[in-house]
């Protein structure tokens, strides 16, 4: 079990930084040895380790997705066989869900920024944080090993009895990989909850915290309370495969619907793990680039908590046609309508924040506006599939595929990229090319819509999910979608290029390039290892704009 015992907090006393012409000492240039990176307990370095890891996994999942889109150009299975296609969409699902989306914002931006935003030196359990990275990497390697040893063809949902009895692929191995990486979620959740409760700077009350921290607090509740149930149900499927006993196998007395209950009890809150951090990033970006306080701060903060809690009550909407009881279906349907309310409240509050703002259309703002637009479409189509009789028609069709991609890709990935672009100066101390940033944001927005909007239509017209050969009349929509996918793929490669380029020859970033509020902007870019040179004191609300930095525009803030 990870060691929870404390390690003495002996830190060398803080000497004022000597003003050498070269960059002052910060967390990046303190030491360059591999050991200093691989054994670091600095939350900032662990955030970067995670960023490198999930970029790799995003590439793997992306390659699987592009191959699928190429295959779907024609109605017949000519590029890859049925076997390979089933393995492709399973790899795409598993890698993207557990090794990119769930860790994306919490473990990179969350790890990096939460201590900075609440004025702490580090997370509550630095060594547990490093352990979470190692557990994530071990889980990732085991899963990639399963992919290389022939892959898995059960889909990321592992529905029994196919996954436990009929599939003859490396299911047990991939289950081990996912369960191991599940510990990484639990460790991150523990770290964030305790840090946010106990390590805030003096004066930083709950309602002076940035909304980014609120959304990560809500996310951590889900990370801690839902992940164990996933580990349990996957272990039970593994036991059923290895010992041939019938926990979920109907021919031996089990009930496949019980598997679905356990699986979706985790997997629906998991989609809120993916979206809540994205909402936190958007709140920060909109507030910063509209040079205004977030409208209805307390409502947005409590909306995060409401989403986390209500998110645990709605999993049955995945099982409307699965043979679940009609009455349970109705209960889950009404609860699914209720869980949409906090999300809508957030969208309205972001929009209201723009009112009377001083809006700068830098790259992060484009990503945030894209997030709000696409998340509104994604969220509202969620109401479509929460309506019982409509879901009977579109369940397991491309309509549902389009819905959750609007949330996962249209919202979470856009927020992740927006966050990377917003805090890049703070993370790397460098500025990237504004033109390329805006160009790639618009390219991604266009490519995304061309990829996934046709899928709403073709899903409603009757194309089921996970088909590698489909009826010829659906080809035009699939060709559009595949065209969009190629633009999207290009759009994702661009930021990788110009951001890495900026590391070497980007201009040096000032401490607060975007005139933003928040403690992380009051320390240097990149920040010193101990985050703050003089102890941070919080005296005003989260987004209060100190009158000293009246922006140069004519209408200054009071």
């Amino acid at each position: 079990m990870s060691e929870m015992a404390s390690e003495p907090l002996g830190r060398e006393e803080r000497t004022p930084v000597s003003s050498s012409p070269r960059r002052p000492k910060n967390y990046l240039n303190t030491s360059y040895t591999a050991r200093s990176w691989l054994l670091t307990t600095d939350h900032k370095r662990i955030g970067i380790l995670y960023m490198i890891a999930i970029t790799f996994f995003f590439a793997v999942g992306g390659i699987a997705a592009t191959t699928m889109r190429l295959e779907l150009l024609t109605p017949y299975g000519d590029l890859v066989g049925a076997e390979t296609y089933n393995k492709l969409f399973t790899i795409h699902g598993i890698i993207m869900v557990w090794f990119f989306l769930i860790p994306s914002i919490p473990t990179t931006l969350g790890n990096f920024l939460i201590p900075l935003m609440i004025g702490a030196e580090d997370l509550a359990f630095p060594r547990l944080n490093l352990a979470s990275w190692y557990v994530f990497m071990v889980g990732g390697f085991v899963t990639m090993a399963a992919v290389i040893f022939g892959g898995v063809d059960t889909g990321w949902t592992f529905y029994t009895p196919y996954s436990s009895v009929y599939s003859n692929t490396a299911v047990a191995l991939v289950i081990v990989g996912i369960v191991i990486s599940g510990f990484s979620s639990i460790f991150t959740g523990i770290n964030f909850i305790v840090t946010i409760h106990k390590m805030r700077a003096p004066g930083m009350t709950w309602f002076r915290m940035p909304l980014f921290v609120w959304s990560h607090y809500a996310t951590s509740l889900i990370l801690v309370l839902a992940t164990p149930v996933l580990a349990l149900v996957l272990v039970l499927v593994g036991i059923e495969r290895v010992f041939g006993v019938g926990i979920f196998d109907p021919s031996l007395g089990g009930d496949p619907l019980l598997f679905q209950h356990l699986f979706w009890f985790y997997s629906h809150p998991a989609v809120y793990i993916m979206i809540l951090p994205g909402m936190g990033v958007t709140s920060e970006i909109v507030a910063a680039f509209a040079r205004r306080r977030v409208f209805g701060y307390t409502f947005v903060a409590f909306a995060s908590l409401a989403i986390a809690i209500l998110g645990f009550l709605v999993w049955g909407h995945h099982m409307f046609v699965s043979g679940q009881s009609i009455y349970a279906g109705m209960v889950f349907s009404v609860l699914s309508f209720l869980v949409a309310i906090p999300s809508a409240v957030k969208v309205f509050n972001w929009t209201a924040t723009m009112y009377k703002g001083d809006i700068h259309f830098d790259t992060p703002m484009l990503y945030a506006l894209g997030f709000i637009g696409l998340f509104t479409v994604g969220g509202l189509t969620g109401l479509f599939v929460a309506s019982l009789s409509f879901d009977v028609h579109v369940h397991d069709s491309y309509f549902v595929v389009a819905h959750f991609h609007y949330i996962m890709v249209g919202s979470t990935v856009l927020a992740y990229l927006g966050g990377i672009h917003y805090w890049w100066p703070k993370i790397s101390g460098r500025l990237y090319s504004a033109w390329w940033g805006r160009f790639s944001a618009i390219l991604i927005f266009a490519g995304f819509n061309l990829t996934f909007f046709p899928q709403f239509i073709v899903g409603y017209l009757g194309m089921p999910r996970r088909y590698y050969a489909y009826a010829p009349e659906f080809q035009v929509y699939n060709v559009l979608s595949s065209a969009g996918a190629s633009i999207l793929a290009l759009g994702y490669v661009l930021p990788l290029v110009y951001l890495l380029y900026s590391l070497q020859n980007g201009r040096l970033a000032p401490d607060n390039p975007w005139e933003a509020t928040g403690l992380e902007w009051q320390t240097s870019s990149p920040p010193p290892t101990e985050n703050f040179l003089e102890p941070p004191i919080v005296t005003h609300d989260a987004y209060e704009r100190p009158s000293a930095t009246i922006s140069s525009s004519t209408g200054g803030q009071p």
Partner: protein
Amino acid sequence: MHNNYPSVRTYFLVFGALLLLLIATVGAHFVALGPFQPVVSLGIALLKALLIILFFMHVKASSGLVKLFAAAGFLWLLIFFLLTFGDFATRYWVPTLNQ
């Protein structure tokens, strides 16, 4: 947080109570309680769990936050039980709408 930890005497008292409850739950097994059988056995188990949480785990002497976190786990479990059993209990109810 550490000054009002229970005394050694309290520990032994709690331990005694736990053993008595163990005997009670085993005894209840032999009494034909019919439908109340699960209620009694789970009730005693809950009581034993509460004793351990409050005294051995010092939750009684801990801050409100620790009490909240201790309760949160069980509360979420309740949500899970209620909604899942909602499905299993009503799965074969057929509404007599059309007949």
